[in-house]
């Protein structure tokens, strides 16, 4: 068990040393020529992309364009057949496990809200908190006042202040989405990957989520995969369009919406 302790602490040290001088023109994540195929189907085809520090980027594209597969490659769930993902210019993500990738500072929200249904909302956030994640530490860990304050701050941010002691399984779908976003914030990641964060939310909830994301701009890098065009427009960010596992075009929302190729494969349908 001691092996893993030293392993992860090395990674943390590495991550924090590169994070000491954050500049907004730094590349936080570089995807270089990744390809993934499943039984002959090319989910990603020589895809290259760059994400900047503290940037909010939206990714759109038709079903099967490879948006989720791209996130899987970054977070270690899927290993690309070719190509590399490099975090903070130094960390080759293909060498790390899912847990180690989370520890270097990449948080991920799944398409289907994935939370701990038999724990309370408070406990969900407690478990997500950035801290020592070894067995030994967890066996003796105690929630102190500083942590309590951090958790209640996050609860407010994601509009769950009233629900701290409720079982997470009892939340509405939209609230579960928020809880998962809250868990990501507790991790305090440098890069957040959000897969369809507003799916199943009411218009009101969607708008509040947009406000939350806008408030995170400049503090974290966010990559948002979304189908809801109004929501993407609300974020006023750079938009990347994927199609058939490759990048189709990139630009401001208005420019992308006017691009005839985009209309052809996606918006026009």
């Amino acid at each position, binding site marked *: 068990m001691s092996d893993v302790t030293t392993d992860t602490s090395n990674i943390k040290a590495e991550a924090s040393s590169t994070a000491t001088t954050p500049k907004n023109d730094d590349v936080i994540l570089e995807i270089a020529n990744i390809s993934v195929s499943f039984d002959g189907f090319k989910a990603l085809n020589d895809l290259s992309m760059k994400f900047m520090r503290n940037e909010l980027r939206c990714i759109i594209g038709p079903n099967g364009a490879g948006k989720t597969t791209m996130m899987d490659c970054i977070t270690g769930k899927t290993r690309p057949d070719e190509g590399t993902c490099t975090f903070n210019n130094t960390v080759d993500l293909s060498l790390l496990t899912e847990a*180690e990738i*989370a520890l270097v500072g990449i948080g991920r929200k799944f398409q289907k809200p994935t939370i701990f249904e038999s724990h309370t909302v408070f406990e969900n956030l407690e478990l997500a908190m950035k801290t020592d994640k070894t067995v030994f530490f967890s066996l003796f860990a105690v929630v102190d006042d500083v942590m309590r304050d951090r958790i209640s701050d996050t609860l407010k941010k994601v509009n769950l202040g009233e629900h701290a002691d409720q079982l997470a399984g009892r939340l509405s779908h939209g609230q579960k989405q928020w809880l998962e976003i809250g868990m990501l914030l507790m991790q305090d990641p440098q890069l957040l990957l959000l897969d369809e964060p507003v799916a199943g939310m009411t218009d009101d909830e969607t708008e509040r989520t947009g406000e939350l994301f806008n408030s995170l701009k400049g503090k974290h890098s966010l990559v948002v995969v979304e189908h809801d065009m109004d929501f993407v427009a609300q974020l006023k960010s750079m938009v990347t369009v994927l199609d058939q596992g490759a990048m189709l075009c990139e630009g401001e929302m208005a420019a992308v919406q006017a691009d005839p190729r985009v209309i052809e494969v996606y918006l026009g349908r």
Partner: protein
Amino acid sequence: MSNARTPFVVRFFSATGRTGWIALVLFALLTIVAVPVCHLMFQEGDALFISTFYVTLIGKIMCYAIVAVAMDLIWGYAGVLSLAQGLFFALGGYAFGMYLMRSIGLDGVYQSHLPDFMVFLDWKEYPWFWAFTDSFVYAIFLAIAAPGLLAFIFGFFVFRSRVKGVYFAIISQAMLYAFLLLFFMNNTGFGGNNGFTDFKRILGYDITSPEMRATLFALSSATLMFALIFGRYVVTSKYGRILTAIRDAEMRVMFLGYNPLWYKLFIWTVAAIICGIAGALYVPQVGIINPSEMATANSIEIAIWAAIGGRGTLVGPAIGAFVVNLSKSWFTVAFPEYWLYFLGLLFVLVTLLLPQGLVGLYQQLRARSTR
């Protein structure tokens, strides 16, 4: 409510709530004071006399209850259905049994310093793995280390390969069966089919004396209570919350930066060690250990105790072990042919009607009466 300044010892023992402590104190008065006193101070025919039969029976069931608590830690809380707990139990039993065999000394049938089965095989000296087993302390160590080490090695590879659910259950049962076959062979050096028996003494004291029986009985009870207190601390700690989180959404846990391998491996190894200790307490009380303890049916029965008592409650599986084994000892006398049918029926009924087991039923009834 505990905070960061509360000493660990206080946090450890206060994880068990008030009701829990009241129950434990009552149980302790009954099993550590009342039963030994009744067994030792009264004679056959006295109204308060508790016979050797009952002391041995309840002592044995308390060992089973310890195993059930371990089963709940690994199955109820971590969601890992293990069908190999009987193996760890037997390994602990064999480890302590080695000491018991060597304590027979020259009192065996062949009056050799070797156990009878080795004389029978025409062996001249102890095999290497019997080294130091004449030491009581080493035997206790071995009863902990052997199941712990095996569980750690097996668990490391299986959990690392992310084997889960029914596949894990099957692999664990395969391991159990492999060891069953191994221990059945005479050449393995553990007495083959017959195992170890005819024990004479522990630390020089007669193993069949009422004092020894009462001592083993009280020790089993103390171990059971400690297992419950320890288990309660573990499952209410942050570690325990992560464990149930792994059970419910392993992917999420991984993407939060926890490595499920070490989390599962810890509780899996601890559960095996608890089973080993239970086995070491069991063998001197029943006076025999043989490969039948590794039968697949035995390990499945452990899962049934947990399910009947109520998974994820710790005390439930212990109660389940008592209920099933007490009815077993009654049934096998009254209707020996029908025990397995009854056990099957009980399991089906509990699964269908009481998914939370007996403890869940009690909680439901209480919630209804307070409403």
